[in-house]
């Protein structure tokens, strides 16, 4: 197949249209830049933002007096000693301005007596989390930002663009090569600055709480372009993801707001509360942090006290129906349609991959080590250390997105010439339009194997034996995947699209597994069954780079280099 690429030129290319990407686009456009806002799916409907159910942490002081420094202290404590402090400070200090901007744009934060309501969430020293009822925070944030994007002049929107590689001119990033899903054609976007706002990597796990396009592609793009990643072993598992009965039309993290508002009780199969065995007595309140909660549930299941589907029970049977309805209104009807009556039965819950603490190395200007490349939102590593505090993800998306948009605009203003050349354009196009020989693998099945491997072996409970077995499977999958995509290359070629997804996901999965293997301790989201204690030697972050065909891990007590290609 030979096909000339479609071409576009812009000042700022923003990859990803969740909250971080949309805010970056808005700010860059306000600074006078032409922006191209690209997304794998529809604009402003994919990614993690739209899935957020409730809490957004911010020191507004609307409910009780507060100051960003208290939010900062809680963020550092949750991060178990590994937070990048300047990034954490930026998140907490600029959170209030972004939350008020969203309020001005009409997001509709829930109010009590005219003041913005703030809920108490685990790990916070006071009520600090704003939200939109009912379970509508993510959709409201997405919709509000979509409206502002649509009103801003200078933003060109481009859905169905699957970014294949960043374009480099020597060390500088000068745009990206993409596969346009709707036509199958290659696309070359020349940009003076590029913002990666691609979110996290929860799609690497079989049980996850985010969209199908969260496969860590931004991490892979950054690595292949020569940037560094940090803290990649720290994948947050949300302890009480919905497990059973089968529930459709609801996000699996929906029980979080229920616990914020009504407490609820976590029970094993003897209908006993158990979290006190793991150091946290809840007494019907929602106080257990995410790392401890996931650990407690998995250990209870391992001890044979789990629920039928392999989790534990969450019960609101002690709550009067009136309280349930007051707190969740129409959601109670949606549950009834799924055969769930919370006054009569508990539900089953289990840990589910939810957020990635690790990510692209960036400074407080959201600048990566590569000139012309910026990052924003969950794609950025370090602000949340080894464990993210509840409610920090949307705040991070807004604050980092705003900063990335401004920084990219500053960079465009300072740079003189338009990028007219990239070193790797023809290589990227050749890959996108490659003629495929008949291949005997099923990309959808390979993706399931990858997700099962990561869930079982590099999930919330890890050991050397499990991780080594996972690396073996991942290596074989990579070999099978080969160096060029299958499919006919025509419109919406699922095998070809999935091949590009797997190319990214396998690289990122191997970085996560290698970093988890190297860190011989338990800290935050990294729970090692063979190294159960926190080690003072490991109060450091690991940095991952791609050096030729090797993943190199540095910063820990030992430097590790592993061949991957």
């Amino acid at each position: 197949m030979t096909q000339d690429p479609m071409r576009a030129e812009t000042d700022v290319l923003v990859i990803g249209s969740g909250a971080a990407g949309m805010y970056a686009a808005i700010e860059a456009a306000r600074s006078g830049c032409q922006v191209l806002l690209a997304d794998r799916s529809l604009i402003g409907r994919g990614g993690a933002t739209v899935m957020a159910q409730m809490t957004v942490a911010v020191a507004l002081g609307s409910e009780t007096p507060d100051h960003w420094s208290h939010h900062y202290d809680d963020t550092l404590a949750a991060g178990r000693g590994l937070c990048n402090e300047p990034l954490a400070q930026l998140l907490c200090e600029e959170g209030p301005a972004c939350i008020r901007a969203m309020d001005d744009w009409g997001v509709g934060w829930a109010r009590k007596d005219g003041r913005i309501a703030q809920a108490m969430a685990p790990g916070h020293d006071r009520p600090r989390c704003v939200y939109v009822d009912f379970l509508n925070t993510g959709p409201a944030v997405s919709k509000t930002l979509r409206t502002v994007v649509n009103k801003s002049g200078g933003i060109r929107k481009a859905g169905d663009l699957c970014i294949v590689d960043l374009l480099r001119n020597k060390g500088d990033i000068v745009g990206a090569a993409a596969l346009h899903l709707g036509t199958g054609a290659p696309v070359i976007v020349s940009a003076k600055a590029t913002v990666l706002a691609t979110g996290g990597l929860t799609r690497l796990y079989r049980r996850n709480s985010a969209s199908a396009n969260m496969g860590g592609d931004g991490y892979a793009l950054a690595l292949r372009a020569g940037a560094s990643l940090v803290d990649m072993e720290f994948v947050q598992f949300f302890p009480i993801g919905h497990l059973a009965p089968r529930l459709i039309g609801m996000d699996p993290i929906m029980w979080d707001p229920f616990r914020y508002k009504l407490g609820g009780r976590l029970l094993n199969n003897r209908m006993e509360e158990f979290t006190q065995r793991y150091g946290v007595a809840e007494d019907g309140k929602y106080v257990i942090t995410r790392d401890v909660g996931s650990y407690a549930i998995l250990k209870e299941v391992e001890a044979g006290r789990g629920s039928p589907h392999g989790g534990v029970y969450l019960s609101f049977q002690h709550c009067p129906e009136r309280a349930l309805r007051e707190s969740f209104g129409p959601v109670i009807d949606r549950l009834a349609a799924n055969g769930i009556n919370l006054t009569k039965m508990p539900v089953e819950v289990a840990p589910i991959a939810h957020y990635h603490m690790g990510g692209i190395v960036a400074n407080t200007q959201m600048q990566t080590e590569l000139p012309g490349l910026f990052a924003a939102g969950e794609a950025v590593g370090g602000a949340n250390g080894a464990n993210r505090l509840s409610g920090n993800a949307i705040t991070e998306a807004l604050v980092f997105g705003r900063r990335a948009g401004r920084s990219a605009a500053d960079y465009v203003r300072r740079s003189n010439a338009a990028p007219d050349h990239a070193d790797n354009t023809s290589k990227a196009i050749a890959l996108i339009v490659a003629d495929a020989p008949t291949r005997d693998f099923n990309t959808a099945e390979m993706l399931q194997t990858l997700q099962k491997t990561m869930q079982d072996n590099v999930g919330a409970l890890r050991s050397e034996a499990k991780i080594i077995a996972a690396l073996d499977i991942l290596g074989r999958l990579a070999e099978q995947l080969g160096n060029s995509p299958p499919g006919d290359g025509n419109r919406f070629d699922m095998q070809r699209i999935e091949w590009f997804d797997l190319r990214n996901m396998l690289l990122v999965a191997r970085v996560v597994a290698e970093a988890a293997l190297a860190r011989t301790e338990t800290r935050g989201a990294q729970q090692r069954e063979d190294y159960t204690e926190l080690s003072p030697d490991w109060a450091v972050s690991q940095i991952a780079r791609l050096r030729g065909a090797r993943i190199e891990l540095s910063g820990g007590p030992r430097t590790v280099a592993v061949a991957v290609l």
Partner: protein
Amino acid sequence: MSESATLKIWRGLDANAGRWESYEVPFEPGQSVLDGLRWIRANRDPALAIRFSCINANACKECMIKLDGKTIYACTARLQPREMTLAPLSNKTLVRDLVTEIAPPAERFVQKRHS
């Protein structure tokens, strides 16, 4: 014997020259039509084109298709142990199989298709 559902699916790149293909998929109560489509991709034919993003939350609104002639979201329509006929939206430009051009014109990289 466990129950199964039969999904009769419209396949093709040309709206005027498609074909119907039937797949038998395992049925468990509570599953969605999208669960069945994803099972077909992983176990029978990875080339089957469907569009979805959020999988289960009905947040992304991408998985709109026709079920027995009615417009539905594949993620919230229940799979049933019978023959179910699935077709692309008839009022949108066909892309492939069950995928149609659903983005508003201002959000498309290619504003007009060259045929």
